């Protein structure tokens, strides 16, 4: 009995020691994290042109300035909305086309880089690395290089976003394809179907809901990206925003109109795609 008690006490002591050690590690990690955050903040602050504390009270100056000007010239706003709708459509077109092409390329790459499905199993690591690199190159770099080659306009942005989308969606697509049931593929193989047929009839019906859901999510992201790329010179509403900002005072009603259009578009698209994705993934009745 005493022996058992002693063992229990021993056990308890070692458990408590374990807990203390865990807490110590947790605390140390937390302290390290806090230290990193603080020193990082200080460093970023020192390397910034204006300091954080100086700028903090000025954060609302610019919005206040543009909104008060837009408020005075509120009669211009409806006309400005109409004026910027074509560039908004261009931005949306860039996002849509690049999502379309990116998703198609991603589907091919994803199937080629999924274990068990690939046409050339030995090449899967190569396709994976390819997607990693495509994902890692920022869109802006490709867009700027293509602007040098092709001149301005929507096409450089489209290609740049499609390139990145291929890498990003390829990874997600391949993860979804990995979880697909391979029995239909085997069944198709047994009746002599080729690789493309096996994928088309065996895998695609299984992964289509997930893939479309990912593609929709990517479309949301790509709208934002195409607006940003417009800012560096490839068409769409971002370009209009840049010109309006460069003009400065007197054009602030245009800035407000663009902000509002961009904000509304993103909200609406987010909302619709949220619903559509819920339906796709959870079935018809979920939404």
């Amino acid at each position: 009995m005493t022996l058992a008690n002693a063992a229990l006490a021993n056990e308890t002591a070692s458990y408590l020691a374990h807990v203390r050690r865990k807490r110590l590690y947790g605390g140390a990690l937390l302290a390290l994290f806090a230290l990193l955050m603080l020193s990082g903040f200080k460093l970023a602050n020192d390397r910034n042109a204006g300091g954080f504390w100086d700028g903090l009270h000025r954060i609302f100056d610019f919005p206040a300035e543009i909104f008060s000007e837009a408020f005075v010239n509120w009669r211009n706003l409806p006309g400005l909305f109409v004026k910027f709708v074509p560039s908004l459509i261009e931005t949306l077109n860039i996002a849509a086309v690049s999502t379309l092409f990116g998703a198609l390329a991603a589907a091919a790459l994803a199937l080629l880089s999924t274990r068990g499905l690939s046409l050339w199993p030995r090449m899967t690591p190569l396709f994976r690395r390819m997607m990693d690199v495509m994902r890692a190159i920022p869109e802006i770099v490709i867009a700027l290089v293509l602007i040098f080659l092709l001149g301005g306009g929507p096409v450089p942005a489209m290609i740049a976003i499609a390139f990145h989308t291929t890498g990003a969606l390829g990874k997600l697509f391949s993860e979804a394809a990995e979880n697909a049931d391979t029995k239909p593929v085997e069944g198709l193989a047994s009746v002599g179907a080729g690789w493309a047929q096996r994928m088309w009839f065996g895998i695609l019906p299984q992964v289509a809901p997930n893939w479309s859901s990912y593609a929709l999510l990517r479309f949301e992201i790509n709208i934002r990206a195409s607006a940003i790329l417009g800012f560096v010179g490839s068409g769409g509403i971002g370009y209009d925003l840049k010109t309006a900002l460069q003009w400065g005072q007197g054009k602030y009603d245009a800035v407000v109109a663009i902000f509002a259009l961009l904000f509304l578009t993103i909200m609406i698209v987010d909302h619709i795609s949220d619903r559509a994705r819920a339906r796709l993934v959870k079935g018809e009745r979920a939404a």
Partner: protein
Amino acid sequence: MTAAAISAVPDLHQMVSRKFRHRKWRAIAAPALIAAYLAYVFFAFDLPGLMSRARPENAAILLGDFWSYKTHVTRDNRSGEVVSAIEGERKGEYPPGQAPDWVSLGEVTRIALPDGSEVLFLEDGSARLDIAGYGVMAMALAGRTIELNLPPGTDKPEWLSQSKNRVSINRGGWRFAMTPSKTEVFRYQIGWELFFFTLDSPFHGRSLPELAALALWQPRLDPALPNAAAMARDFWTNAMWRHGEVAWAMFETVLMAFLGTMGAGLIALPLAFFAASNFAPARALRFALRRLFDFLRGVDGLIWTVILSRAFGPGPMTGALAILLTDTGTFGKTFSEALENIDAKQVEGVQSTGAHAVQQMRFGVIPQVAPVILSQLLYYLESNTRSATVIGALVGGGIGLLLTQAIITQKDWEEVCYYMVLVVLTVMAMDSLSGWIRRRFIKG
């Protein structure tokens, strides 16, 4: 089969054939719609116009510049002075009286070129070109015009262009140009020249074993510093490639992503509790917070960047704050959804031992949501490293700024390539780091 079942067969048949018809229609309509849309975009994006505006010759410049460099050998036709410089830049100039080994200086400057051709800068200011597979041509200055003498009995070749006061030759691997003020030879070579040490460094032009020997046991070249330290200094302060500044910029970019992501997580976590229906008693507050998250996400990073850079000026702090604001919205949404999906039993269990609210959170809730939160944070940290490059280009900080600056010059493509490689490597490193942390802490 019962009577009811038999009577249902025609209905079933009808339903099935109707579904088939629908499917058939959809199978044709969807590709047709996409094709129509693409046709519309083809004209909306003005692709025919693009073909005419495209500058394929720029592609050749760019691709060549990515992995090669050129050395200029220039004679000032007034003073007669000959200078060799990498990329024609001051920072890449050879010290007076020195030149690459394929140039021999003297009364007559002899320049040996890769295809076996030779260019001579003669004492009288004229130039003699012995071009492989063609012959010898001479050109001399006569006042402001250039007299060109081709080998007898030959026509002007298509790689030579001539006007009254300019003769230029493009032979692919090298070029030659003569104007009244200067005579110049450009030779292209593969590689990133001066990547490690510039010409003014004593370590330039030494082989790897030589450098290793210098670093490890040979006497100091610079009495003030050990050789290894001097090498590090010369590399770090390389004027051509600016490794020190580039490393700082890359660090700044990662810092932006780190501060933005983690800051957003720190702000969003407590707010998410008030936005989750199973924790927040106040409906109005919940509704307000949700709209706030939607607003933060809806006002895109681009708009935040514009607004913030007015208040804080260019730099990494502005970029970090722009990331922080957008991601607070995203995290607020996903964290509060994660909190709504927790299992209430675990919290009840903790409650039954007499724990108070904070202890219930700590031991009942946090362990359930921690994996979701951690993996979200890590995923965004990686993706924000890339976004920080773009945001850096807009706010003027980090590697994004260097990249746009290098691209705008339209000639420093080798630097663009260098920065791109760095960004890709960094993003991939962040990717594998976050994957490692996820495996270590989430899957146990």
